[in-house]
């Protein structure tokens, strides 16, 4: 199970990183979603992987085998936050796309359009 979880985190992270480096809005959104899945699984695993164990101690406290409940709470928080953030990201990138008719993340160099003007002014 450790190998499965570890390689799942690895594949998700690698895919997410690759997609973010594409620098176009849609792949970047997908990439960040993949990264957040990877980090959720990672957080989950940070409480040790255990199967068929309750997340609480039993009444007597004699049986100390339990699965750590805290990472589950952390993952829940992280899921909620990343879900909200993804929604914001989709709206912002949609807004940027509608304004600019292009889904590239990079901004064309802001000083590019200056050279022509400077030339005109020097020419005067």
């Amino acid at each position, binding site marked *: 199970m450790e190998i499965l979880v570890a390689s799942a985190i690895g594949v998700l992270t690698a895919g997410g990183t690759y997609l*973010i480096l594409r620098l176009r*809005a849609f792949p*970047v959104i997908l990439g*960040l979603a993949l*990264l*957040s899945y*990877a*980090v959720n699984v*990672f*957080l989950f*695993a*940070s*409480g*040790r992987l255990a199967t068929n164990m309750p997340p609480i*101690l039993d009444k007597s*406290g004699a049986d*100390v085998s339990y699965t*750590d409940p*805290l*990472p589950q709470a*952390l993952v829940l*928080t*992280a899921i909620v*936050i*990343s879900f*909200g*953030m993804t929604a*914001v*990201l989709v709206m*912002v*990138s949609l*807004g*940027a796309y509608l*304004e*600019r008719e292009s889904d590239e*993340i990079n*901004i064309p160099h*802001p*000083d590019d359009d*200056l050279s022509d*003007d*400077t030339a*005109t*002014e020097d020419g005067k």
Partner: protein
Amino acid sequence: MNHWIIAPVVLPALLAPIIGYVMRHDIQLARTASVAGNLFFVGIAVGLAMLASTSADPFVYRLGDWPAPFGIVLVLDRLSALMVLLTSVLALIVLIHAIATGWDRRGRHFHALFQFQLMGISGAFLTGDIFNLFVFFEILLIASYGLMIHGGGRERMQAGLQYVVINLAGSTLFLFALGTLYASTGTLNMADLAERLTQVPVEEAGLVRVAAMLLMIVFAVKAAVFPVQFWLPGTYANAPAPVAALFAIMTKVGAYAILRVHTLIFGPGVPATHGIAEDWLFPAAIVTIAIGALGVLGTRRLMPLIAFSVIGSMGTLMLAIAAFTPQATTAALYYLIHSTFAAAALFLIGDLVLARRANERLTAQPAITENGLFAALFFGAAIAMAGMPPLSGFLGKLLVLDALRVPGEMPWAWSAILAGSLVTIVGFARAGSTLFWKSTSIIPHPSADPSVDEAVPPPPDHPRAIALAPSMTAIGLLAALAIFAGPVTNYVGQTSAQLFDRDAYVNAVLHSPLNEEPNTKIIKSHDDEGHGDEADAAEEHGEATHDEGGH
């Protein structure tokens, strides 16, 4: 427990939805509520700063009265009180500027987002739990996304998209760091982490060191330290100017987090992570200064110029922080207060100037109304930012230089700061003379071909006193910071002494007599078992790491 400690978080948290839902159709009502709330916030922050200076020990606020490390705690010490006070004063200045210049009407929900932003920032300064720090980071970020794209427009949306993407990637990294930290120590409470990490032997500390470095990268993204500073010029230059001025505190959130986490948790005296932050932060800060200075010299637009000067000041700040000694931290805190107001003043003045010019290019254009007044204001803010006397930038840099007189560091640090200051002065002088002096020799001729300059200069507008007041206040505060440098240095000196007293912090959070109150007895008895289990888990994991290392 003093309930006022949570007020800086609760007040904006309550105010923001009320402004957002109830007052969304009435801008005057929203403005009144926002300013009133902010004034109250300043009052609370002053009270908290006074409270924090009454005792050498930090004040602990246990949420839900759960004892640490099981519940989340807020911790008020001198540093967090100082940062909250700085936030509140800056916010008031920025808010009045935004109202006076009408920025808050150019989009929706400015005031609600502004309050949410304040909630996130003060929460980040107050929290004593590192996962809670992540949550407050997300709150301040999501509010800043809204503020960043306030008013819309092509460039701004595009820059906003970049800003959102880089910060989402940063948040993911933050979570990876927290997961690693929890897996190797079994706790997320900062005081508890501090206590446990001193017991981690050096040879088993691989994962902890990874977490320490990951956290530093995350905070460096916020603080705009090389190599993750690239997002800042585009964001700050394209954000609405009052928002950029408010963002002056956002970079300081990153600086605060590095300072807090790498003194308290991975601090000096922890063998597992000894020297890890210093070794990387010091050269990175030097490169950051260089990038800032070159950017100031190279850019041909006003707002990017100011943004690059912010990068340069963050480099200087980080250089002082990277020393991790009480004296250097004192200098860093003084410079932090200074650079926050200096950056805010520059952005606000830049906004007033740009509102009266056709575009933000640094070329000679017809003189604006009240040219002399704006020239004087720009001059004042620029010499503060560049570090010239008589304003506080000079004293701040002097303190930093004085604190870095360590043989191995001094040649690098001194030449970086001094050369960086010189280049920044040249850049600002060139920009200022183009903006204000060369402009007076150009007479506007209305018959000129309008196609040469696509944007027509805005009509002459005499600035109202209320529009000038915020930037003048910011410069006045810089002057006050220079005049009262003695008392301020004294206060920040005590602050950094408290910051380096890790045992006092840990004892106040974990071992305070309040934790032994009768109604918490039952929880206390479980407490010990919990400790045992988590310690076992940590040990198990330590062995696992060790084995992997062996392979």
